[in-house]
């Protein structure tokens, strides 16, 4: 069904399949680094667009395109800064392609950028807490929260920002795709015991995010 970008673009894009290949692209000639960046830019762009489209769903009279390109550039720079520290953390043995890893990192970064005034001084992006729909959200019970798609989307967003790409990978496999512990252990080359630890950790993170949102007064648990 779908083509991969490198099939479309020809030889100007490269997608490392191993850490060695990634290191080679990062430390090799500038054109290799550029080729890697050109592979990752569409992935980053998609995730940035996803976040901004969601956040600005109610904004009027304003195009998103420029902000999307600005933030794509911003995230790209962050991936490659400090000797590409973030990219070098990618471990394909965990069952994630570089593109998937970068997608998760990009989404996390852009959410962080939008939320953090310190990293985006005088930003013109609205803070999530100021989102009209959230401010106007009525107080709901825990049952109401579970049934509120708006609340759950905010929870999903905060969780993405909070947990590491590896944690998000585990969350997606165990909870979103509902795979068995055995399957996930095989795919991620880890043990069932390690996954149970992850499971508890992720459940705790969800509870913490909920408490955090309630504390911020974004949504209320009582009632």
């Amino acid at each position, binding site marked *: 069904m779908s083509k991969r970008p490198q099939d479309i673009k020809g030889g100007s894009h490269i997608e490392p399949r191993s850490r060695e290949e990634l290191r080679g692209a990062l430390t090799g000639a500038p054109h290799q680094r550029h080729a890697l960046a050109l592979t990752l830019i569409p992935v980053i762009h998609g995730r940035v667009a996803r976040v901004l489209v969601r956040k600005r769903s109610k904004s009027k009279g304003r195009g998103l395109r420029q902000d999307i390109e600005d933030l794509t550039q911003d995230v790209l720079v962050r991936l490659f800064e400090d000797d590409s520290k973030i990219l070098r953390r990618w471990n394909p043995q965990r069952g994630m392609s570089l593109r998937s890893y970068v997608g998760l990192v990009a989404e996390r970064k852009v959410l962080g950028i939008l939320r953090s005034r310190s990293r985006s001084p005088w930003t013109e992006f609205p803070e999530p807490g100021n989102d009209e729909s959230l401010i106007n959200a009525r107080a709901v019970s825990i049952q109401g929260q579970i049934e509120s798609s708006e609340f*759950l989307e905010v929870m999903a967003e905060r969780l993405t920002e909070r947990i590491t790409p590896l944690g998000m990978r585990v969350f997606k496999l165990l909870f979103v795709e509902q795979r068995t512990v055995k399957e996930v252990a095989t795919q991620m080359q880890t043990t069932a015991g390690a996954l149970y630890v992850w499971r508890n950790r992720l459940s705790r993170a969800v509870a913490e995010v909920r408490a955090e949102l309630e504390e911020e007064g974004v949504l209320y648990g009582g009632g």
Partner: protein
Amino acid sequence: MVEDESLVRGVARAMRELDDSDEKWLALAEGRLSPEEREKLELEAKESPEDARKFEAYSPIDEGVARQMAASLDGNPVRRQRVRRWIVSGSALAASFAIFLGSRPEAEDPLPAFTASVRVGDAVERGSALETRGLSELPSTRADSTIEVLLRPASEATRQPRVVVWIQSERGRFASPVSAEVADNGAIRLRGEVGAIAAADHGPVSVVLVVASSPEADMERIAAEMLSLEADGMRRSQTGPSWQAIRVDALIRAVEEPR
């Protein structure tokens, strides 16, 4: 706890639904769609404003722009030509537009490219051409209204830029008593009451920000040149080897005395 488990399942369900609904759009951004799939999406976008908005947001980044982004990793300033955009928020005029296309590569102290965002007081304006506006069409504002000029670098500045703010008003040409702030990442902001920044309570005023990386740049001269340009049909921004400048004009309305 059962409630926590339900919440985890709920969040997972929300993620699943978001992933499913976004998949085709992510595929569009990443160039993974076949021409037929893309065409279908484009047709859907024509039927729905929401899909049209998504189509614009997710349409692949132009190859040339992507190459410039990649080149910026080597410290080359981004030379993206951007479309000027306007934001109208409440009763405030907010004009955002790209003013700088980056410094010339031969500069010893190149500045990063900046995007300018300008908000002027309580004037309301829609997408009119700031660059060709005459004096009678200047944004009208009050002395106690807020003006904000925000310059955001496309990439981290290698050294902190110097900034000066100059004013032209009926009193003449002088340095503003209000300074611009410079953030650690090189972003620059001038914010305050129009009257305080321009040291005026009525009449036409022009505010010029000059940003330079090199100590050699004669910022006062650059500001003077920018301020001497005719208001009608002038360019609002100029770029030199190691400096960039933007000018914002406004008309301060005199406050009527109560009868």
